[in-house]
C-alpha cells in the first residue's frame, strides 16, 4: 500500500491541452473517486498514474518515488478496466495468475494466492472456464481477482461498473466497498456516475474541463459545493438553479428572480448590491404546499413517482425546476402549488459561478 502524490500534472495531445495542472495527494489506504462528465480528463489522469499515457509536465510519485518515466510494469499498481480486458484465450485461473507467473512467483504460492482470491470473490467453481463463458458480473469479479492477487501498491479502477446492468452495478458497488474495507488498499476510482462516487469515496475529486473543481468528502461536496459545476453534477435529481439579481438594503437583502418573483433574505451574502448571481437549491429542500408570506405559486408540469419518493416538475415564472418529496399526497397534484425555498438551504453563486 502506498500514497500517491500528483503535482502540477499537465497533459496535451499535440497542441490540445487536456489536463491543466492537477495537484492531488492521495493518502495511504484512501479510496479516492475521480468524477466528472465525459471528456473531463479523469480517465486520462488515471492512465497517466498507471503509466499508459505519457506525462506532458508535472510529477507523479507513488510511495514517494517519482514514476513519470517508469513503465507500467514497474509501478506495481493494478488496474480494473471498463471492458474488464480479460485475456480471452486463458482460463479464469490463468487470467488471475498471469501477473504472478510473469514475476516468476513459485507455483505453490501462485496456487494458494489465486485460490484465496477466488474464494473471496466466489469464483471457485469457475476457475477453468474461459472468459467468454462468464456473465458480465462474473467477468467483473475475475478482473478484480486479477488485481487483488498481486497485493499491489494501489488499485486503479477505470469505470469498472459501466457495462453492468443497474442491479448488478449496485451489488458490485457494495462488493468493491467491502473489498476496500478488507484490504485497505489505496484506490483510485474513475466514474461519471455520481452515485458511485458518493457511495464509494473517502474523498471525491470532481473534475471538469481538465481542471479539478473541488476535492472533499462526499457530503462536503453535496452540502457545500464550491461552484455551479459541482453543485449541478453531484446529486440526483440535480440542484435547481435560478438566475437573478442580488439586492442589498442595510442589514437585509433580497433576490429578484429573473421571472419577477422576489425572495426576501434575512441575512446578507457576500455579494455586491445589484450584482447578477445564481441561486441554487436541492429538490429535496423545496417545500411544497407551503403557507406564509414567502410562499410563491408555481405551476405543476409533471409528477414522476419513483416509488421511494416523488419528483415534481414545476415552473416558477419562466424557470423550470424540480422538487422531491416523500409525501404521497402530492402524487395527484395539478394546476398550481405554493412553494417555499427555505433560506438555510439556499446556495449562492456569483457571476463567475463560484459559491459565495
Amino acid at each position, binding site marked *: 500500500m502506498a500514497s500517491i502524490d500528483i503535482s502540477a500534472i499537465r497533459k496535451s495531445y499535440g497542441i490540445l491541452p487536456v489536463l491543466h495542472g492537477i495537484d492531488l495527494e492521495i493518502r495511504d489506504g484512501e479510496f479516492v473517486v475521480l468524477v466528472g462528465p465525459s471528456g473531463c480528463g479523469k480517465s486520462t489522469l488515471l492512465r497517466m498514474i*498507471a*503509466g*499508459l499515457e505519457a506525462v506532458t509536465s508535472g510529477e507523479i510519485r507513488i510511495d514517494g518515488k517519482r514514476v513519470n518515466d517508469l*513503465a*507500467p*510494469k514497474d509501478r506495481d*499498481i*493494478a*488496474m480494473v*478496466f*471498463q*471492458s474488464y*480486458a*480479460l*485475456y*480471452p*484465450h486463458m482460463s479464469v485461473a490463468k487470467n488471475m495468475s*498471469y*501477473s504472478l507467473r*510473469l*514475476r516468476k512467483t513459485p507455483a505453490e504460492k501462485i496456487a494458494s494466492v489465486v485460490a484465496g482470491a477466488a474464494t473471496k470473490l466466489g469464483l471457485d467453481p469457475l476457475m477453468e472456464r474461459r472468459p467468454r463463458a462468464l456473465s458480465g458480473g462474473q467477468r467483473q469479479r475475475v478482473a478484480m481477482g*486479477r488485481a487483488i492477487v*498481486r497485493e499491489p501498491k494501489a488499485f486503479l479502477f477505470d469505470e469498472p461498473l459501466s457495462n453492468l446492468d443497474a442491479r448488478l452495478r449496485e451489488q458490485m458497488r457494495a462488493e468493491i466497498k467491502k473489498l476496500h474495507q478488507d484490504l485497505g488498499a489505496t484506490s483510485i476510482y474513475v466514474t461519471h456516475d455520481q452515485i458511485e462516487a458518493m457511495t464509494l469515496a473517502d474523498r471525491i475529486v470532481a473534475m471538469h474541463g481538465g481542471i479539478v473543481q473541488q476535492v472533499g468528502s462526499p457530503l462536503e461536496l453535496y452540502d457545500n459545493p464550491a461552484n455551479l459545476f459541482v453543485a449541478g453534477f453531484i446529486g440526483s435529481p440535480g440542484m435547481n438553479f435560478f438566475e437573478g439579481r442580488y439586492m442589498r438594503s442595510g442589514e437585509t437583502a433580497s433576490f429578484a428572480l429573473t421571472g419577477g418573483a422576489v425572495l426576501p433574505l434575512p441575512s446578507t451574502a457576500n455579494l455586491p448590491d445589484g450584482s447578477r448571481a445564481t441561486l441554487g437549491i436541492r429538490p429535496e429542500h423545496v417545500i411544497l404546499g407551503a403557507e406564509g408570506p414567502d410562499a410563491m405559486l408555481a405551476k405543476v408540469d409533471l409528477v414522476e413517482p419513483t416509488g421511494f419518493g416523488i419528483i415534481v416538475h414545476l415552473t416558477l415564472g419562466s424557470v423550470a425546476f424540480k422538487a422531491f418529496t416523500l409525501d404521497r399526497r402530492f402524487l395527484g397534484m395539478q394546476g398550481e402549488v405554493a412553494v417555499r425555498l427555505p433560506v438555510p438551504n439556499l446556495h449562492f453563486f456569483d457571476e463567475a459561478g463560484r459559491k459565495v
Partner: protein
Amino acid sequence: MTGKRILAFLAHRLAIFAYVVFALFPLYWLLKVSVTPNKLLYSEGIRMWPSRTSFEHFEFVLRHSDFPVFFKNSLIVSGSTAVIVTALASLAGYALSRFGFRGKYWIVALMLLTQMFPLVMLVAPIFKMLSPLGLTNSLTGLILVYTAFNIPFATFLMQSFFDGIPKDLEEAAMIDGATQFVAFRQIILPLTLPGIAATLGFVFTAAWSELLFSLMLISGNDAATFPVGLLSFVSKFSVDFGQMMAAGVLALIPACLFFLLIQRYLVQGLTAGAVKG
C-alpha cells in the same frame, strides 16, 4: 406460403449448386484428363469420363520427369515466403495498428503505391538488380522478390486483425507486468492466430501459383518452380496434356492440405472485423 418457401429454398440451393459446379468444373477436367490414357485422349471425343482410366501420366511425371524437383522448389519458395512475409507483416501490422510515429502516413502511402504497378513493368529492373547479386536462377532470389511483393498487402491484412483486438488487453498485460513485446507475444499474437492463418494461406497460394517472375528469373530446371515446370510439358510440336494435367493434380495437393489445415482459423479470420470479436 409453405410451397413458396420450399420453392425459394430449392432455387437457393440450385443456384449454389450451379455456382459450385461452375467453379469446380476446370478442376474436374484437370482430373479427368490426367487419368485418361494417351490413346483415348483424342480418339474418344468429348466425354465426361474416359472409358478406361490409367495412372500412367502420374507414373511418368513422378518417375521420369523433373517434376519432383519443381515440386520441391515450389514448396521451399512458397513455404519460406509465407513464413517470412507473415512474420514481418505481423510485426509491421502491429506497429501500424498500435503506434503513432513520424512518417507513418507516408509509409502507408508508399506501401499502397507499390501495389499500383503492373508487375510486368518491374520484371526488367528487378532482373537487372538481382543479376549482379547472383540472385537470378536461385530460389533465394525468388523468395526475396515474392516476399517484397507480398508484404504490403499482408501488412494491411494483419493490421486489420490487430485493429480488431482491443487495446485494453495489452494495457492490462503491461500493468500485470509484461513489456510491450511480451504482451504482444503472449496476449495479442495468440488472439491473432486466425489472422496469421489467413495471411499464411494467402501468401502461400500467391507464391505457389506465381508464374511471371519465376519464368523470368529462373532459367534452368534446377531452380524452376512447378508453374514453370508445367510449361516443360509444352514442346515445340505438341503439348503433353495428360502429363501436364497429372502434374497439375499433384501440385494441387499441398495447397489443399495447407488449406485443410488452416481452414478452421481461416473462416474465423476472414470474417473477423465484420463483427466484434
